[in-house]
């Protein structure tokens, strides 16, 4: 952290950096000054707020689990197998990171909705449809969160020494045993970082959720949706408390992970 004396020093650079930092700090300050500290506990204990918090927690953990179940194998395929179209597949798999979430919601609706490509036949056969249900929220959150897991785990797999796996294979371990006893333990830091990052993205998901799953307290109204509704319903203090809570959680995740999600951990 100590600046070497030979480092070229530019006051202009520092001023711009300061402005850059302020750009991030001021919105947080704007929320903090509106924070109703005295009634915070009361607001958090409100049954409606509790319902949203519980739903957010359950849905984000479930989507993290789903993202691990599907995302780790996908990351493995991207890191270890060579096949035509691999770059395209990787692009598609991490596309939701840069896609507007509402586009994801529309796409999910047209694929898994009650008249969608896949959802249509399923709804006709079983009567079940994902929109307006908590599983719908989990699907929407997984769609936007899983890319973070895939990209982190793939980086972990690429940087690991494959000779460990080769040695285990030579010693007679089955492919499954190698994966379980060698590969996964070695990439554990990447896996944990990816899962935590995916979880925090799922927790903050708004656009795909409200578009695909709808908005109903207790079923599909997660904390970000509740914030939006509270703001429009003249309940600014509730919106501020929930916003600050989201910030605290996200900031804790970012600080705890440091740079690990960039693949240098």
């Amino acid at each position: 952290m100590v600046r070497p004396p030979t480092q070229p020093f530019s006051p202009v650079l520092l001023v711009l950096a300061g402005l850059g930092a302020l750009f991030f700090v001021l919105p947080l300050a704007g929320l903090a000054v509106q924070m109703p500290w005295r009634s915070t506990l009361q607001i958090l204990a409100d049954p409606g707020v509790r319902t949203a918090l519980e739903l957010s927690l359950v849905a984000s953990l479930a989507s993290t689990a789903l993202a691990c179940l599907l995302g780790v194998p996908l990351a493995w395929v991207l890191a270890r197998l060579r096949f035509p179209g691999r770059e395209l597949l990787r692009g598609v798999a991490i596309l939701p990171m840069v896609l507007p979430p509402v586009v994801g919601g529309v796409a999910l609706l047209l694929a898994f909705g009650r008249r969608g490509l896949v959802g249509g036949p399923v709804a006709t056969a079983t009567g079940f449809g994902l929109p307006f249900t908590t599983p719908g929220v989990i699907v929407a959150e997984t769609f936007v969160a899983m890319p973070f897991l895939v990209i982190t785990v793939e980086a972990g797999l690429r940087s690991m020494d494959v000779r460990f796996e080769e040695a285990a294979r030579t010693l007679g371990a089955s492919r499954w045993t190698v994966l379980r006893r060698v590969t996964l333990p070695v990439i554990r830091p990447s896996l944990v970082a990816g899962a935590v990052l995916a979880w925090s993205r799922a927790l903050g998901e708004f656009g795909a959720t409200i578009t695909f799953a709808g908005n109903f307290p207790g079923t599909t109204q997660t904390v970000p949706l509740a914030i939006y509704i509270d703001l429009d319903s003249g309940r600014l203090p509730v919106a501020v408390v929930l916003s600050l809570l989201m910030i605290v959680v996200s900031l804790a995740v970012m600080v705890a992970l440091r740079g690990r999600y960039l693949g240098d951990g």
Partner: protein
Amino acid sequence: MRERRSTMLGAGMAMGLLLAACGGTASQATPSPSARPSGTLTVLAAASLTEAFTQIGNQLQARNPGLKVRFSFAGSPTLVTQIQQGAPADVFASADQANMEKVVSGGFNATTPRIFAHNRLEIAVHAGNPKHIRSVYDLTNPGIRVDECAPAVPCGSYATTVFKKAGITVTPVSQEQDVKSVLTKVALGEADAGIVYVSDVKSAGSSVAGVEIPDSLNVVASYPIVELKSAPNPVAARVFIEAVLNSSGQQALERYGFTPVR
């Protein structure tokens, strides 16, 4: 809190003045009846007004070549929040009196709100009414997925009134932020029924059909319109409000299913 709000209002007004000053095209503060509207006019309007107001805006632009009318259509409470946070807009049209009252009590209005149209609720169903919904009483059937507006949105509070009058409890599958989202969910077949306005069904096209709600259970939604205090373009604001209230504006509203006031 009160002080902070007035500071915010001040900031919003300052922004409005700044825009008016920078725009150069905005007219002077004291309009005469003969003043030609020019520059940009920003209208915040309830989502149910989308089709009717777009037509009125196009007519106004055709008559005034120097005028550009911009609309922001959303649920009325979303627009109220934007006004309270200092959005530089000229005109606000709400789908109910409650949301307009928030604007008036905050002192954001420049004129007294005027009612320009009425609307009624209707049950929107998918084309061909596959679930055979005949009345609001069918909405209590557990196999029917009903979508409605959130309670703070006018169409949501009106829906609650209708259900109360009918003496029924309806559990919706979702609460949307504006009436057009309800319509979309019905059109896509995600919801079997949606509580929307008569005007929405009329402008929705062939993917949606309407099931009438009888007068005894229905509500009369009154739409007020107002010029905002921080209006960057007050001349155009007044001309637009007149255009909504005059005979061609009223015809446009009637064409899209509203009940005109004159």
